């Protein structure tokens, strides 16, 4: 579960969808209603967020410094300061929706069949984002000899507008639906806002870090409840962190020239296969 969570949290394929579907399809004896399941998820998320913090450690130091400087000065002067403010603007809508709606939505839709349907929807969204991106490339008459060169015609994360950052941040709330990927919708939103694929992934990962870490840390007291096998759960969290680190490194390299649509095709296929397996009770 740790490896699964760490890998799928950052790949645009929905960690929650896989966490609902795979135990059900493989007949694992996980009971999501078990009181010790929430602390387990909390630790897995903290593992993922720690991996992202390690990956972007130098950038986070610069971002925090830039944020404090710009906040005190009341003016943005550098790209780092602008990015720190964009991340704040992007985090607020997700935090509001997360605090007030997350548990209600998750409870409402936490069934394997619903997760499979939303996985198909997620795939269609990824393919749709790429279709719109290709149209934008044609409209701006981007002529390049390679994909890397073609990507250079698009913007860096620091150049996204504040309105777009807020919309991309709010899109994270869609990931409360099992099957819809947080990184998928934020990377897709970044693409629509005119970012390069690699920069959209970077913005998505930076945006995810405070959200995932915050959501995990506020639940830490649950770990000290009786009957929680902390040692086993910590091992899961470490595996989750390692998988998340490797996934992020892979994805950042992949998105230098790669696109979202292979993940879209995977989600549509995996969703349909899961629906069939669940229907025939295999």
């Amino acid at each position, binding site marked *: 579960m740790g490896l699964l969570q760490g890998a799928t949290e950052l790949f645009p394929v929905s960690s929650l969808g896989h966490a609902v579907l795979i135990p059900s399809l493989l007949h694992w004896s996980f009971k999501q209603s078990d009181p010790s399941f929430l602390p387990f998820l909390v630790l897995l998320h903290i593992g993922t967020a720690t991996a992202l913090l390690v990956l972007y450690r130098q950038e986070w130091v610069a971002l925090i410094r830039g944020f404090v400087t710009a906040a005190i000065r009341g003016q943005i002067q550098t790209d780092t300061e602008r990015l720190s403010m964009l991340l704040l603007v992007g985090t607020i809508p997700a935090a*509001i929706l997360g605090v007030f709606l997350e548990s209600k939505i998750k409870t409402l839709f936490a069934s394997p069949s619903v997760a499979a349907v939303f996985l198909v929807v997620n795939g269609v969204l990824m393919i749709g984002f790429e279709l719109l991106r290709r149209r934008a490339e044609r409209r701006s008459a981007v002529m390049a000899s390679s994909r890397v060169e073609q990507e250079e015609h698009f913007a860096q994360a620091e150049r996204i507008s504040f309105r777009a950052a807020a919309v991309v941040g709010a899109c994270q709330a869609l990931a409360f639906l099992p099957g819809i990927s947080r990184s998928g919708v934020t990377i897709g939103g970044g693409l629509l806002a005119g970012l390069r694929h690699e920069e959209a992934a970077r913005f998505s990962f930076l945006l995810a870090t405070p959200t995932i870490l915050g959501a995990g840390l506020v639940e830490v007291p649950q770990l000290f409840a009786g009957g929680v096998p902390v040692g086993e759960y910590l091992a899961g969290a470490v595996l989750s962190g390692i998988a998340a680190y490797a996934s992020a490194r892979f994805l950042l390299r992949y998105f230098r020239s790669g696109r979202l649509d292979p993940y879209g095709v995977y989600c549509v296929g995996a969703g349909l296969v899961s629906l069939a397996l669940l229907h025939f009770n295999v």
Partner: protein
Amino acid sequence: MKSNGLAIGLGVLGVVFLIVAALYALGVLQFLASTSGPHYKHAILFVVLAVASFVAANFARPKGTIYMTDPRR
């Protein structure tokens, strides 16, 4: 868009958010909360909103020119 009125409004909003955060942390406020008792998640959210409001207030504040000597002379 810079004005003293907007800056004051955002500052007041920040103070209101801090009060709401304290009420959630003490368990006095139960609005949109699923259980009774203190709601630290809600409190942290409102602290973040308060910080964002104060930052926005500082951005909205018109920056005056600093005169080394009295400009009327």
